[in-house]
């Protein structure tokens, strides 16, 4: 295993998704897994640059290395088939952006549609779209709350071990 793969594997392990690397097979060894994940991270970087062109961001890998605790939910997303636009949305929320709108529709065995808008305090906003059923997973991670009897859906949270 290459040293940079070992670093990524450690980050995934501390984020409770170490199985991504533990399941490496002869067809796709740990280094190939890391390569695939890095390619996905690169797409997420592109999505962030497209969504918030004026806003400077750390690259995804740099961010998760700097603070794996803050970005744990994003690391968990890389362990699932969540698409790059949705990973970019997750990054923005973990970076302090507010979830301002969610639209979701589903027709059995026909279609799924997900639209998520997030906004930074500067007013910069972006809408992330998906018609991939796996992306619906992200809805399970939002903080769903009420304030003044009105809905507040904000924050993106990692799955936790049941014993925690």
């Amino acid at each position, binding site marked *: 295993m290459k040293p940079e793969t070992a670093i990524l594997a450690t980050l995934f392990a501390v984020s*409770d*998704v170490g*199985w991504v690397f533990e*399941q490496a*097979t002869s067809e796709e060894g740990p280094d190939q897994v890391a390569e695939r994940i890095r390619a996905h991270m690169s797409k997420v970087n592109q999505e962030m640059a497209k969504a918030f062109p004026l806003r400077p961001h750390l690259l995804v890998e740099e961010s998760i290395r700097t*603070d794996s*605790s*803050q970005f744990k939910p994003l690391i968990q997303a890389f362990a699932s088939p969540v698409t790059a636009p949705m990973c970019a949305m997750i990054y923005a929320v973990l*970076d*302090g952006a*507010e979830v301002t709108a969610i639209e979701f529709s589903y027709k059995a065995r026909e279609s799924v549609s997900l639209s998520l808008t997030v906004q*930074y*305090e500067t007013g910069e906003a972006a809408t992330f779209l998906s018609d991939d059923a796996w992306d619906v997973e992200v809805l*399970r*991670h939002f*903080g*769903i*709350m*009420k*304030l*003044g009897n009105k809905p*507040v859906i*904000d*924050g993106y*949270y*990692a*799955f*936790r*071990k*049941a014993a*925690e």
Partner: protein
Amino acid sequence: MIGGFEFELGGTPSPDDVGRLLRLLRVKWPACILESADGAVTATIQDVLRNRSSTSQFFLYRDLAAKRSWDEHGLTEENGDAMISVIIDEDFIMMIVNAQDSVSGHIVKEILQGIHTCRNVNRLVPPSYAPKSQQVTI
């Protein structure tokens, strides 16, 4: 520390709880300023959400004007409802406001209820192993 009315939520607080607390408060106080209890850290709520403060005792001011008012005059009739004191302890979250039946009192009550409701929502899903195939002889 100021006197006032305490609202407490039992249970071991997690970093997620603090995140929820701040995000809920941001809805009501978008220009909120956080100051650590020792005065060493002062930051906007946006920066705290971005950088995850690890401070366990802090003050949350409605905005910069409220913080300045507290700095200059301490508690007054006008600014009493514009500051919330927070203590994150090993087994509880405590939020202290000037008066129970105040705007900040209602906000705090709802925030702690929101955190309480959220705590049990997310649980780790056991990993699913990738399907494998191999030739067998029956």
